[in-house]
């Protein structure tokens, strides 16, 4: 579905150039949940941004269903609304001055008029708000009246309003406590199966990645150092960085020999 070939992102500041990403090669298959794991400076967020149009790659190509996403530093939307995103911080990803209804419907403004009417009708809006676990009366309120977990649900509803096929999720649960995280992860997983979505799930949290993703790519300082099925990466990591990353994970049950947690 998505082909990333030799993608590079280099930031130039005066005479200094810093490599943020690349060269990176990656394929994302339709219908899968691909995890992108790494720490700060790994380039995982930058890679995500390149897929949604926020950062133009310095070189290389990204194709979506065969069509290149970037032509000469301009982001091309062949089928607007098919690629959407959910970010880490629900506090700043929602405009504090906008009503929830307007926030959720906003992505439709990037669609052609006919589609806008079809997808923006109040019946579908009602369904959507219920699906993410909120009430109709919430539509007329402002973001600050909601808790963090609820705001993230609103962000998810917003990402779904254009009926996307591919979702880039950049640390969608990192700002939350375990109990809210569980609710959001459940919601995301259900939605993925229901609507047959494809996810690129970016996170630094190994347990979350392990739970959500079928395949995982490990990034370190801009490069993908290892990629494989979740099972392979977690049971048998090959690259020294992957090993280091996994050994740093603190599991609740087994501390002595660092083996993986068993269900209680």
């Amino acid at each position, binding site marked *: 579905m998505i082909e990333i070939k030799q993608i590079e992102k280099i930031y130039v500041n005066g005479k200094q150039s810093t490599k943020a990403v690349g060269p990176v090669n990656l394929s994302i298959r339709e219908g899968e949940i691909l995890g992108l794991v790494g720490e700060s400076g790994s380039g995982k967020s930058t890679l995500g941004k390149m897929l949604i*149009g926020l950062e133009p790659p310095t070189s290389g190509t990204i194709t979506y269903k065969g069509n290149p996403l970037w032509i000469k530093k301009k982001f091309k939307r062949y089928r607007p609304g098919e690629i959407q995103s959910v970010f880490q911080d629900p506090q700043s990803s*929602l*405009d504090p001055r906008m009503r929830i209804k307007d926030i959720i419907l906003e992505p439709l403004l990037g669609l052609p008029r006919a589609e806008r009417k079809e997808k923006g009708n109040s019946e579908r809006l009602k369904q959507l708000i219920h699906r993410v676990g909120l009430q109709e009366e919430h539509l007329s309120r402002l973001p600050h009246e909601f808790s963090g977990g609820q705001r993230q649900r609103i962000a998810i509803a917003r990402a779904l309003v254009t009926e996307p096929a591919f979702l880039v999720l950049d640390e969608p649960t990192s700002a939350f406590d375990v109990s809210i995280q569980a609710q959001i992860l459940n919601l995301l997983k259900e939605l993925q199966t229901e609507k047959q979505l494809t996810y690129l799930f970016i996170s630094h949290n190994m347990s979350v990645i392990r739970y959500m993703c079928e395949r995982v790519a490990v990034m370190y300082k801009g490069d993908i150092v290892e990629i494989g099925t979740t099972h392979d990466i977690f049971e048998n990591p090959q690259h020294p960085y992957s090993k280091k990353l996994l050994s740093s994970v603190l599991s609740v049950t087994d501390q002595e020999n660092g083996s993986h947690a068993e269900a209680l």
Partner: protein
Amino acid sequence: MATVAYRKKTQIFKENPIWYKLKQNKLTWVGIVILSLIVLLSLFAPLLTPYSPTKINIAEKFQSPSFHHWFGTDEVGRDIFTRILYGARFSLGFGILVIAVASFIGVAIGTVSGYLGGIFDQIIMRIADMVLAFPNLILAMALAAILGPNLQNAMLAVAIVKIPVYIRLARSEALVIKEKLFVKSAETFGISKPRIILRHFIPNAFSPVMIQATLDVGDAILLISTLGFLGLGAQPPAPEWGAMISVGWQYLLTYWWYPTFPGLMLFLSAGALNLIGDGIRDVLDPKSAR
């Protein structure tokens, strides 16, 4: 149904952190009271005084404050209290008008400049800096003198002087808002930049602009009046406070009421607006939820 909705609305209003903090600031209330009084006086001027602001009555010239003429009369017998009331309309009205225009233009230019950046932004900033480098009054005087001494030109001069303030303010707000996730999200949706500016930038830049504007109205009133005083603004016989002082100051020692009352009104209006602006600033910045 309606009562439930009403109760909910007032609850939200009362729980609004801005209202709560504003309630606590005493000086701001002083400012609000004074300003409200002045506004009311100016609105109801014809009802409050039987005299005309411009009708000459030489027989009653230079009368000291009395029961008939609360603030006395001027050199052609006009009631000063009346002139002050009508002058309030001038000063307040035009002060607000000037700032409204200046802020509108300034915010528009500044927001676009900040969001788009590039050479356009650099040029705008240099021009704004150049204008801001001059002391307000000197530049306003120069402009008014060039354009010709009348009230409209004085207002234009003050507006021109004030526009760069809003350009800078809106631009620095825009620079911050530009990086916010909700703007980045909007960009990913494929929404056009002008639309993003209207939907996201303007509403979020509203508060600091309001603060600045409230403070500036006081400043504008003073500037227009100063120009009037110098003969570069409103010309006599217009009942503008500055123009009144321009004629009246020579009588300070003989007929003290003539320049004193207009001066006092200037002081009160500008002061009240400053207190209000300060109060608003204390409340909105640092903000609770921005």
